[in-house]
C-alpha cells in the first residue's frame, strides 16, 4: 500500500521504511522558525537548563509582529532576541523590516522540498507550498527543539483535496480555500495533513499555493502541502545552494478522505465575522459598508496580490470614508512592487503603504479599529478582537475583492471591476 506525503516524509526523517497514521516518531527538523516570540521561547529554553542551542544552523528567527517596535515592551523584547541570537551564534536572523516570517523563510531559501519545518506560529503550514512538511508547534515544544535539536511528532492522517474545473475570472486561490474551509468547517481537517492536488492547483503560481497551505491551518490541519514541480524548482533557483530531495505521495497512497471540488461555478467568497468557516459567496454580503480595507499578510501580501489590486485601483481614488492599508509581506515583495509602479498606483489611489511586517493582522500595532467599525481583509483570521478591537468586525476575502471594496466603500464583487 502506498504512503501519503506525510507518511513518506516522516518515515524518511525518522529513518524508517514506513510509518502509519497515529504512530509517534522522533525526528530532526530541517528548520525551526520563530519570530517575536523567540525571547519567550528562549526563556523557557533557559529554564530547561541548557546553555547552548543544539543546532543553531536550523534556527530561523524573523522579527515581524510589531515592526518597528511600537511600545517599550516590544522594543525590549526585540533587544533580548538580538542578544540571544548573538550569544548563540544564530546566523539565520532577520531583523525588523525584512518581512513576515512566512514570506522571508522561503525567500531566503529555507523552505525546500522534502524538508521538515516546524515553527512556533500557527501558519507554518504555509511552507507546504514548497513540498515541505511544515507544522506549527507550541512555545514549549519550540524550546525543546532548541535544546535538543529534535522533536516527536504523531504521524497525521491525510486528506487529498483535488481541485478541478475552469477557474472563472475574478476568482482566486483565496476564494477556493475559503470555500473549502466553509465546507469542511474550522476543525474539519483537525490534525490532518492536507494534500492539495488537481489541475487547478497545478496551474497555480507558488504564491497562490502558499495561500492554500497558509489557510490549511484554519481548517485545523497540522500541515498542508502542494507537490513540488517545475514551478517550485524555478522559484527556488538562486535562493539556495543546499541539497534537497523531493518527497512525493505514492500514487496508490491511502487517504482518510479524498474530496473533490469543481470550481467552474465558484463565485468570490467571503468569511463573515467572527469565524473563518462562516463563508458565503460575496453576493450575499455585497453592499456591506466597510471602514477599512486591508491587503497584505502572510496569506495575501505578495506581488501577484498587489498586481491585481493595482489593476483595479489604478487611476481611481478609494471611497472617501474608507481607509486602505497595504502591507507587502517582505522587502523583496515591496521592491518588486516598486519596480512595477504598483506602489505609486496604490499611493495615488489613497492607500497607506505600511512597512513589511504583520501589522494590522493581529491588532498589536497598525490599523486598529474603533468599536462598530468593519474591515475587509486578506488575512487568515477574523476572530472577535483579532485586529485589536472586540467590538469591531472583520470579513475575509481575496485581494481583488478588497481592492474593489476599497473603491466603493462597501463589500464589492471584484468581477465587476476586472
Amino acid at each position, binding site marked *: 500500500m502506498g504512503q501519503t506525503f506525510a507518511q513518506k516524509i516522516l518515515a524518511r526523517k525518522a529513518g524508517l521504511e514506513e510509518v502509519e497514521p497515529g504512530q509517534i516518531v522522533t525526528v530532526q527538523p530541517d528548520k525551526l522558525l520563530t519570530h517575536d516570540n523567540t525571547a519567550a521561547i528562549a526563556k523557557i529554553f533557559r529554564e530547561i537548563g541548557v546553555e547552548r542551542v543544539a543546532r543553531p544552523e536550523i534556527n530561523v528567527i524573523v522579527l515581524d509582529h*510589531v*515592526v*518597528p*517596535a*511600537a*511600545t*517599550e515592551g*516590544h*522594543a*525590549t523584547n*526585540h*533587544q533580548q532576541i*538580538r542578544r540571544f541570537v548573538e550569544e548563540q551564534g544564530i546566523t539565520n536572523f532577520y*531583523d*525588523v*523590516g525584512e518581512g513576515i516570517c512566512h514570506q522571508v523563510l522561503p525567500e531566503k531559501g529555507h523552505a525546500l522540498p522534502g524538508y521538515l519545518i516546524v515553527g512556533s506560529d500557527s501558519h507554518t503550514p504555509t511552507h507546504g507550498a514548497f513540498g515541505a512538511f511544515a507544522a506549527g508547534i507550541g512555545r514549549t515544544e519550540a524550546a525543546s527543539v532548541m535544546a535538543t535539536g529534535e522533536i516527536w511528532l504523531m504521524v497525521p492522517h491525510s486528506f487529498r483535496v483535488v481541485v478541478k474545473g475552469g477557474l472563472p475570472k475574478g476568482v482566486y486561490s483565496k476564494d477556493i480555500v475559503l470555500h473549502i474551509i466553509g465546507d469542511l468547517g474550522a476543525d474539519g481537517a483537525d490534525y490532518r495533513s492536507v494534500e492539495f492536488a488537481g489541475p487547478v492547483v497545478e496551474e497555480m503560481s507558488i504564491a497562490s499555493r502558499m495561500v492554500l497551505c497558509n489557510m490549511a491551518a484554519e481548517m485545523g490541519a497540522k500541515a498542508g502541502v502542494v507537490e513540488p514541480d517545475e514551478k517550485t524548482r524555478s522559484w527556488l533557483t538562486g535562493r539556495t545552494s543546499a541539497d534537497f530531495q523531493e518527497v512525493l505521495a505514492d500514487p496508490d497512497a491511502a487517504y482518510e478522505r479524498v474530496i473533490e471540488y469543481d470550481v467552474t461555478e465558484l463565485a468570490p467568497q467571503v468569511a463573515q465575522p467572527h469565524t473563518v468557516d462562516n463563508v458565503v459567496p460575496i453576493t450575499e454580503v455585497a453592499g456591506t459598508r466597510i471602514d*477599512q480595507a486591508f491587503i497584505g499578510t502572510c496569506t495575501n501580501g505578495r506581488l501577484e496580490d498587489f498586481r491585481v489590486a493595482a489593476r483595479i485601483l489604478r487611476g481611481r481614488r478609494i471611497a472617501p*470614508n474608507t*481607509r*486602505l*492599508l497595504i502591507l507587502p509581506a517582505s*522587502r523583496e515583495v*515591496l*521592491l518588486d512592487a*516598486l*519596480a512595477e509602479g504598483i*506602489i*505609486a498606483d496604490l*499611493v*495615488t489611489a*489613497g*492607500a*497607506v*503603504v*505600511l*512597512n*513589511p511586517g504583520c501589522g*494590522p493582522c493581529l491588532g498589536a*500595532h*497598525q*490599523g*486598529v*479599529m*474603533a*468599536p462598530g*467599525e468593519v474591515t475587509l481583509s486578506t488575512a487568515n483570521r477574523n476572530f472577535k478582537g483579532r485586529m*485589536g*478591537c472586540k467590538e469591531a468586525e472583520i470579513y475575509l476575502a481575496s485581494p481583488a475583492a478588497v481592492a474593489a471594496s476599497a473603491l466603493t466603500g462597501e463589500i464589492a464583487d471584484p468581477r465587476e471591476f476586472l
Partner: protein
Amino acid sequence: MSGKTIIEKILSEHSGEDARAGDRVWADLDLAVVRDFGGPNVVLEYEKQLGDKPVWDPQKIAMTFDYQAPAKVVLVANNQRACRQFAVKHGVPHVFDVNAGVGQHVLLEHGMVLPGSLIIGTDSHMNLLGAVGSFSTGMGTTDVAAGWATGRLWFRVPETIKITFKGEYDHPASAKDLTLFLLSKIDTSKTIYKSLEFYGQPVDSLSLAGRLTLASMVTEMEGKIGFITPNQSILDWIGGRAGRNVEAVLPDQDASYWDEWEFDVSGLEPLIACPDRPDNVKPVREVAGTSVDEVFIGSCTNGRFEDLKVAAEVLQGMGGKVAPHVRLVVTPATTEVAMEAVEAGLYETFIKAGAMVTNQGCSLCTIGHHGVLAEGDVLVSTGNRNFRGKLGKGSQAYLAGPAVAAATAVKGEISLPE
C-alpha cells in the same frame, strides 16, 4: 510712533487694532487646525461647553491625522472617529485622514497657508509655517475649542528679535546644521516668547525645505514664531497651490526690535544635538564613533523630498547598506513627498539598503507609534526633540541633519558624511 515688525503687522491686521509688542489683542483666525492628538480633546471640550452650537466657520477648520496613522490602539481609533464625526456634523470639509501625512506640511501643500495668515493648531510645531511668513502657533485644547466657537483668540503681542546670518558654507552642512548652530548660540531666556525674524544670505538661499527646517525649531528656542520672508519663487509656489496671488508681509523700515543679533556661519560644519536637549549642540566630529542602534530620517523638520534625497545620496555614496545592527526608519512627511520619493527611486535605495520606509506621518517623533527604543538604545534622529526618555525609557537621542543621519546608519556609529 515707529513702524511695525512682522508680528505686529499680522496681529494688527487680524485684530483691527494698532497691535504693539506687549499688548493683548483679540485676533481673528484664518484657520484652526487639530490633529488626531489634541483633536478629540478639542471635540469633547467644544461639545461640553457649547453642545450642538455650530462652529464659527467650517471652512476655516481643518483636521489632520498624523499622530498615529493608522491607529495603534482602540483609543486612538475612537479619537479619530470622533473627529471625523464632528467634521461631518459641522460641515468641516478639510479632513486629511491617516493617508495624508504631517499636518502642517499637508496644509501647506494644499494651499491653505498664506503669508501673513494667522493659524492655530494642537501641535507646538505649527509655527514651522513661519517659514512662509504665516503666524502659526501651537495651542492647547481650551484655546482651540474657544477658537472653533468664536473664530478669535487672545494673543499677547510678542517682541521681535531680528536675526541676521552671514557667511557661506558647503554640503554636507545643511539647513539643519544652521538651525542647530543657532540653537547653540542663543540664550533661551532672551528668546522666550519672542517673534524671530531671520535675514541674511544664508537664509535667503535656503529652499522651502530648508526654511521649514529652520522655522520648525523655533519652539525649541522657546520662541513663539520664526519668520522667513518668502522669496518670489516661494510666493509663486504658494500662489499656485492657493489659486491666487500672494504677497509677503514685510516689516516696516523703522520697525522697533527688542534686539538685533548677527551670526556668522562661514565654514559651518555638520553639527549634532546631544542627549538630552536640542541645544546641547556639538560638532559631529567631536562625538563621531558613538555607537547607535536606530536612525530616523523624517519628521516635520526634515521629512521633505529634499531631505530624503540627500539621505539617499549619502547612503548610496557610502556603500548603500545600513550597518547590520542598526534599524533605519525613513518616513516621508506627506503623500506628495512619498510619491516624489517613489518616482525618484529613493524608496528602492532605502529598502535595498535595509531600511524600513514607513507611511507618511509624524512617525517616530510622537512616541507610541513605532520605532520605540529599548533601554540603553541610542537614536540619531532628524527630528526636533531629544528630551530624555521621550522615545523610550532609558534611551538617548541625538538630533542631526539627513546627511549625518544617513552616514551614521551606514557606519553604525555617529559619522560625518563622505
